C-alpha cells in the first residue's frame, strides 16, 4: 500500500514538472530553441505573485490572475527584444543569449529580494495542508489534485488550441516550415512572439504553483529547467500530451527513488532520463529534431 501512495505522490509531483515543461515544449516545438532562462522566468513569476499577494493582501491564487497577463506581455516583449535578434544569428545564438539572461535574472532577483528562501504555502491557506485521507497510509492533498487538474487543463487546452484554432494552425505551420508559412501570408515573427508570450505566462503559472507547493529562492530556476527538460525528453519531443506523461514519469521516478533513500530522489529522475536517452527509441529523437 505504501508503494501506491509513493506512486500517487509521484504523479502529483510530476504535475508540477509538466506545468514547467509546457512552455519549454511549446517554444521548442514552434521555434526549435530551448530557452535556458525558462526556469528563471518561472521564478520571476513566483516572485511577482509573492509581491502582489503580500502588498495587496490577497490569496496567491488571486495574485496569479493579475500576474499571468503581465507575464504574457513580458513574454511578447522578450521575444521582440532578445529572441528575435538571437534567432537571426543562427541556431546557437538563442542558447547563448538565454543562458546569459538566466544569469542576469538570478542575480537581479538576488539583489532585489535577497537570497532568502520563501514560500507561498502559508499565504495560500488551508488548500495546501488539507488532504483526503483514503486509508491510514494513503492521503491525497487538495493542492496536488489542483496542480494535476491545472496541468491537464493547460497542456490539454494548448494541444486543442494548436489543433483546432486558426492561431494554432499558424503556429503549427510555422513550426513545420517558417518560410513556406510566410509564403501563404503568415507573419512568422508574430507567431514566434505569441508562442514566447504563452510560454512565459505558463512558466510564471508553474513558478507560482511551485512556490505554493514548496519553497523558492533566486537560484531555484536552473533545477526546474532541468526537470522540465527531462519531462519533455522522456515524454517525446513535439507532443504536449507526451510532455504531461513525461512530467508524471519523472515525478514518479523521483518519489520512488526518494522512498528508497532520500538521497536517491533526484538521482532516480536523472537516471530515468538517461535511460530514455540511451534507449533505441531515442535514436529517432535527433532525426526528428533536426527538422529546421
Amino acid at each position: 500500500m505504501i508503494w501506491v501512495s509513493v506512486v500517487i505522490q509521484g504523479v502529483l509531483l510530476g504535475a508540477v514538472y509538466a506545468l514547467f515543461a509546457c512552455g519549454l515544449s511549446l517554444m521548442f516545438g514552434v521555434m526549435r530553441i530551448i530557452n535556458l532562462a525558462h526556469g528563471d522566468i518561472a521564478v520571476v513569476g513566483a516572485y511577482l505573485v509573492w509581491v502582489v499577494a503580500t502588498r495587496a493582501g490577497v490569496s496567491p491564487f488571486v495574485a496569479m490572475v493579475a500576474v499571468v497577463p503581465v507575464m504574457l506581455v513580458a513574454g511578447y516583449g522578450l521575444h521582440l527584444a532578445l529572441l528575435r535578434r538571437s534567432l537571426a544569428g543562427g541556431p546557437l545564438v538563442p542558447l547563448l543569449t538565454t543562458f546569459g539572461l538566466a544569469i542576469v535574472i538570478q542575480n537581479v532577483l538576488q539583489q532585489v529580494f535577497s537570497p532568502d528562501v520563501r514560500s507561498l504555502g502559508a499565504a495560500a491557506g488551508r488548500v495546501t495542508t488539507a488532504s483526503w485521507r483514503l486509508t491510514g497510509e494513503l492521503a491525497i492533498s487538495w493542492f496536488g489534485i489542483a496542480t494535476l487538474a491545472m496541468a491537464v487543463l493547460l497542456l490539454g487546452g494548448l494541444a486543442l488550441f494548436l489543433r483546432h484554432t486558426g492561431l494554432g494552425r499558424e503556429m503549427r505551420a510555422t513550426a513545420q516550415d517558417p518560410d513556406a508559412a510566410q509564403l501563404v501570408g503568415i507573419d512568422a515573427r508574430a507567431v514566434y512572439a505569441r508562442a514566447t508570450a504563452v510560454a512565459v505566462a505558463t512558466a510564471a503559472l508553474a513558478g507560482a504553483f511551485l512556490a505554493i507547493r514548496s519553497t523558492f529562492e533566486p537560484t531555484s530556476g536552473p533545477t526546474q529547467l532541468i526537470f522540465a527538460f527531462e519531462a519533455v525528453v522522456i515524454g517525446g519531443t513535439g507532443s504536449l500530451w507526451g510532455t504531461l506523461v513525461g512530467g508524471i514519469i519523472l515525478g514518479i521516478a523521483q518519489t520512488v527513488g526518494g522512498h528508497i533513500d532520500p538521497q536517491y530522489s533526484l538521482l532516480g529522475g536523472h537516471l530515468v532520463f538517461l535511460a530514455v536517452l540511451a534507449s533505441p527509441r531515442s535514436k529517432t529523437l535527433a532525426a526528428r529534431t533536426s527538422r529546421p
Partner: protein
Amino acid sequence: MTAIETGRGRYAVQRGTRRSRRSLTAIAAGIVALAVAPFVLSSYAIDQLTELFLLALVAGMWNALAGYGGLISIGQQAFIGLGAYATIVLSHRGVPPYLAIVAAAVIGGVLAVPISLLVLRLRGGQFAIGTWVVAEVLALLIALDPSVGGGTGVSLTGLNVYPPADRQAYTYWLTLGFGVLLLGAIFALLRSSIGAGLQAIRDDEEAAASLGVRVYAGKRLLFVLASFGCAAAGALTLAKTLFIQPRSIFGLESTASMIFMVLVGGLGTFEGPLIGAIVFFAIQHWFADFGAWYLIGLGTTAVAFALFVPRGLWGWAEQRLHVQLFPVGHRLDVRAPDSDDRRSRPNADRSASRGRN
C-alpha cells in the same frame, strides 16, 4: 603553398601570412620564456599565471566544442569535477599526486567516450541540457560516496610533502604543459583535413554530411578532446586549491565563465579564447567583489557580444586589422600581374577567407 599562373595575375593559396609565421615564432619564444618564469617571478605572480592558464585552457576547450563542432555544452563542469575527483581517488590508492593529475586527465578523456554516445544523440539546446544532467548525476553520485568525502568535500593531502614554492612551480609547469599540448593539438587538428571537416560541420551540418564529412566522428573527437582538457583543468585546480567540494567543483559557474570568455574573445577563432581569458582574468580581479552586480554585468556583456559582436574581440580585430597569430585556415593571395608586390591585397584576402579563418 600552391601557386597558379594565369593570364591576369598570379594566385597562391597560403596557410598563413608572413606576419602570422613571424608571430608563431614569437609565440614559441614566449612559451620558452613562460617555462623559465618560476625562476624569475614571485610565487604570487606564478599563482596568478597558473590561474590565467587554467582559464585559457578551459576557454580553448569550450571553443573547440562550440566554435568548431557547433556543440554548446553547459555541462563541462562534469569533466572538471571528474578530473579533480579522479586525482583524489588515485592519490588515495598511493599514486604520486602529479602522476595522478596526468592520469586523471586521461581518465576524463576515456570516460568522455561512453558519455559522448549518450549526449551526442542530442542536438542544439538538447545537447546543452543533456551535458548538464550528466554533470548533475556525477555530482550526486560523488556526494553519495563517503570515501571521497561525500557532500562535505575532500583534501588532496599527497602534495604536502613538497615545500609550497616548489608545489606552485610544479603545478604551474604542469598547467603550462597541458595548455600548450591541448591548444597545440587543436591547432594541429584544425590545420589537418579533419579540421576542415569540423569547420564545415559548424557551418552546416547537413551540407557537410552530404559532402562526405564524418560528422558524428568529428564531433566525438572534439568532445573527447575537450573533456580531456577540462579534466586536466579540474585536476590542476585541485592541485592549486588542495580542497574540493562536489557542489562547487561541479558548479555551473565554471562553464558560465568558459562561455563568457569565448563569447568576448571570439567564438570560432583560435586566438579568441586566449584574449577572452585575459579579459575575464582582469575583470575577475577588479570586479569580483561586487557580487551580484558583477555577475549581472558578466551576463549582460555575454548577451551583448552574442548579439552584436558574434565573433568577439578577436574576430573584430582580425577583420579590421588583418592580423592572424595562429594560421588555421587557408588564404588566397592575389598579386597584380605587373608587379612583384609581395603583399596581398586586403580586399581579395577578405573575400577569399569567407567564414571563419
